[in-house]
């Protein structure tokens, strides 16, 4: 009799335990994903087979959830920059050369002034900001020559020359330059006393020794993160 009672109690307890596991709503379920993503997922789930990665989080089993977490961790780690990359903190005017996340060198720089120049006729406007986000070193030049853009003449109140040759100015960019797109460069400067200030037209200026070192370490394709 006792053993029967025990077996009955155990089975009730097991059923109750399982039910409480299934029925228990999480205290705080994750908020739904943004609308666009949900729609995409819905479209996908209309297909014949419902893959695990298309399933909403709430419908995944514990095992599937754990697998998705692992897969996302791997995917996120794969996005992280590897090897040598450059980080620029425009608030401190500092450039960090990193190798596999460890800081290899830190240098003082000058970055964009944030000033706005408007042309005489008011038709054109230039904002002298250093762009922010992820960039790639696209070119490396020794003894670069500055081809002065229109704003450089307008700012000085000079006439914009017709001949291309009248725009070139050697020596002002230092010994090395690294282009990262849209006419922006990391380059040297004659005004080393201005390092640490936001005085440029968007480019990143560095001192000679630091520039030489970064130029040596960076290759075409090196990632550059500016914030």
């Amino acid at each position, binding site marked *: 009799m*006792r053993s029967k009672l*025990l077996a009955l*109690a*155990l089975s009730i*307890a*097991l059923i109750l335990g399982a039910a*409480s*596991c299934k029925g*228990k709503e*999480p*205290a*705080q*379920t*994750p*908020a*739904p*994903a*943004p609308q666009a*993503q949900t729609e995409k997922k819905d479209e996908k789930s209309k297909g014949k087979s419902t893959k695990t990665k298309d399933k909403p*989080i*709430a419908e995944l089993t*514990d095992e599937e*959830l*754990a697998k998705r*977490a692992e897969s*996302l961790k791997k*995917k*996120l780690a794969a*996005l*992280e*920059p590897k090897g040598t990359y450059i980080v620029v*903190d*425009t*608030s*401190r005017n500092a450039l960090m050369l990193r190798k596999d*996340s460890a800081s290899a060198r830190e240098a003082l720089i000058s970055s964009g*002034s*944030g*000033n*706005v*120049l*408007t*042309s*005489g006729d008011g038709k054109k406007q230039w*904002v002298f900001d250093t762009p*922010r*986000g*992820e*960039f790639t070193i696209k070119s490396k030049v020794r003894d670069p020559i500055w081809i002065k853009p229109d704003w450089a003449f307008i*700012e*000085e*109140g*000079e006439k914009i020359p017709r001949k291309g040759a009248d725009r070139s100015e050697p020596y002002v960019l230092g010994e090395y330059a690294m282009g990262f797109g849209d006419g922006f460069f990391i380059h040297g400067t004659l*005004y080393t006393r*201005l390092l640490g*200030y936001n*005085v440029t037209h968007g480019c990143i200026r560095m001192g000679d020794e630091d520039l030489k070192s970064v130029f040596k370490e960076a290759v075409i394709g090196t*990632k550059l*993160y500016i*914030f």
Partner: protein
Amino acid sequence: MRKLLLIILAMLTLCSEAMAIDRTALEREVALLQAEYDLASKPQIYMVFDPNNLRVLIKCRGAVLKEIHFERIKQWGEPAVGVSYLLKESIADTKPERKQLAPGDAADKTPLELDFMDVADMPDSYRMRFDGGMEIYVAPSQIHADTRWERFKRWCREQYKRLQWQFTDMKKARQEGYNYFVRTSMEPSDARALYWANREGTPWLVLP
């Protein structure tokens, strides 16, 4: 025998509770990882706000570029897990303004004479409002001023602003659909750096 039954029952209940907690934690982790993966997939700077550890991480492609620390944080409401909040606006008493240059302004002038906008021009006391219903109030943990009187005036002003935010602005914001509020205080230089790093549209992810 009864004791044994009670022990088994208690163990089963505890086990089921633990499993439910694990499940919730796992769901949150997946939602957060998915949200961060979505942000890191784009070539953009994003913030990961970790109120429990009093810090915000400036990140890109999953890599931490900088860590900014808070001294104190107080929260009202709960953040949405796995949703990125987009910075809609920053509200400050005095907003930094860009200097407007006219043709010829740079002639015969050094860049320092021309003036420029840098982190020192940023405010150290401001509110950040986000699409998605989050608002963060940033106040300086110390007040620097030239004289004691100036410091006292600024302190009074900060206290008034804080109370106004807590009792008036927060109420208004709730009516507008805001549901998660954070009041922080931090080193003035960190507050300025945070303002500098955040532009309209910067995405923020909040760790619960």
